């Protein structure tokens, strides 16, 4: 009888009999070995503005070569990329793009970074790792766009090659992670702290879903956790929910809820709190935490004005953390 395998990539720790796949839909036990089904086979490849990740403190106004395979190890009810994240690879249109081709295409298209994104790159770990190593050798920044539901060992191996991570901190309660995402909060918090300790530049995103995680106490607790564990300089992006996937009956997040969330974040002592999807709101911009001057003026994903010079405020020379060059 062929042996079972236990995946050790994420905390689901799927135990698989011969021919079975993990919850991510893209790892399979064949002949007693665990294989990825999506290595070098992305189903989504785009060139995006880096601000879309969202990353506001990394290479402003630059292009990011962005890719994803099918599959995901979470089951978020609000997922905007559910067509690929909740599909096995045989139901997506995949292309052949080995790591060296990813790097070549990124360079040929004058991208300064490669983003592993859209679904969750944890599930195409080997592909991401090999590509990230080549990308770093070629002077490209690697962006890990993730829900961070990943075991410590693979994360520690990955960290030296990813300069920045855009992490979804979806909520601040175990109940929310279980009911909304079929995952757990604590491993995500641990992974965020690991990346922070390893020197990965972090920007966190919280999607505010009406009636689920929009209470002021939840937002206060989330902001407090960030301040206490990561410090005030980790940017936090509050993102607007749009009816999608399994939550089409809910309304979009009201603009005033996002604006209030930003107020709570700033009151909690966080220096950089942003709101997404509210045109012309001051929450789109970066301000100096010391003198309050406008540093980066944005409309949508476009940068209209940048007053950060050599990583410092142009006006008072305060260090503004990020990867600016």
């Amino acid at each position, binding site marked *: 009888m062929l042996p079972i395998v236990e995946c050790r990539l994420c905390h689901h720790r799927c135990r698989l009999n011969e021919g079975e796949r993990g919850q991510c839909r893209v790892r399979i036990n064949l002949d007693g070995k665990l294989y990825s089904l999506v290595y070098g086979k992305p189903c989504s490849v785009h060139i995006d503005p880096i601000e879309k990740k969202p990353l506001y403190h990394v290479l402003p106004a630059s292009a990011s070569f962005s890719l994803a395979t099918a599959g995901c190890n979470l089951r978020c009810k609000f997922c905007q990329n559910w067509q690929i994240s909740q599909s096995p690879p045989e139901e997506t249109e995949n292309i052949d793009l080995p790591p060296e081709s990813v790097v070549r295409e990124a360079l040929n298209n004058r991208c300064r970074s490669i983003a592993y994104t859209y679904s969750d790159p944890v599930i195409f*770990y080997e592909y991401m790792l090999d590509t990230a190593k080549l990308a770093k050798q070629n002077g490209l920044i690697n962006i890990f766009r993730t829900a961070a539901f990943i075991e410590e060992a693979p994360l520690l*191996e990955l960290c030296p090659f990813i300069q920045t991570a855009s992490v979804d901190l979806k909520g601040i309660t175990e109940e929310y992670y279980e009911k909304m995402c079929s995952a757990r909060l604590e491993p995500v918090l641990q992974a965020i702290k690991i990346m922070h300790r390893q020197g990965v530049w972090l920007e966190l995103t919280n999607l505010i879903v009406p009636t689920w995680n929009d209470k002021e106490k939840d937002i206060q607790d989330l902001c407090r956790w960030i301040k206490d564990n990561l410090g005030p300089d980790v940017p936090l992006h509050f993102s607007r929910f749009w009816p999608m996937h399994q939550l089409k009956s809910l309304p979009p997040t009201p603009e005033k809820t996002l604006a209030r969330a930003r107020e709570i974040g700033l009151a909690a002592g966080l220096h950089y709190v942003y709101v997404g999807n509210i045109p012309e709101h001051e929450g789109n911009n970066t301000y100096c935490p010391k003198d309050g001057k406008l540093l980066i003026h944005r409309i949508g994903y476009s940068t209209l004005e940048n007053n950060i010079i050599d990583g410092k405020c142009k006006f008072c020379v305060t260090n503004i953390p990020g990867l600016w060059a």
Partner: protein
Amino acid sequence: MSQKNLSRRGFLRFLGGLFIGLFATRWQKISHIFSPKDTPPNLKEAKYYSRGDEIAG
């Protein structure tokens, strides 16, 4: 046709059949995953997993 040619042809057919049989056996394991129109999977052994008696509990 000479006996020698018949033997050679037979041997080559045997080798061809053996090759196809081995390939078909392997392909059979994964062809049901992908339709003929799709690119075949590029199987890559995972980096982080345990097998059989390495698994606790």
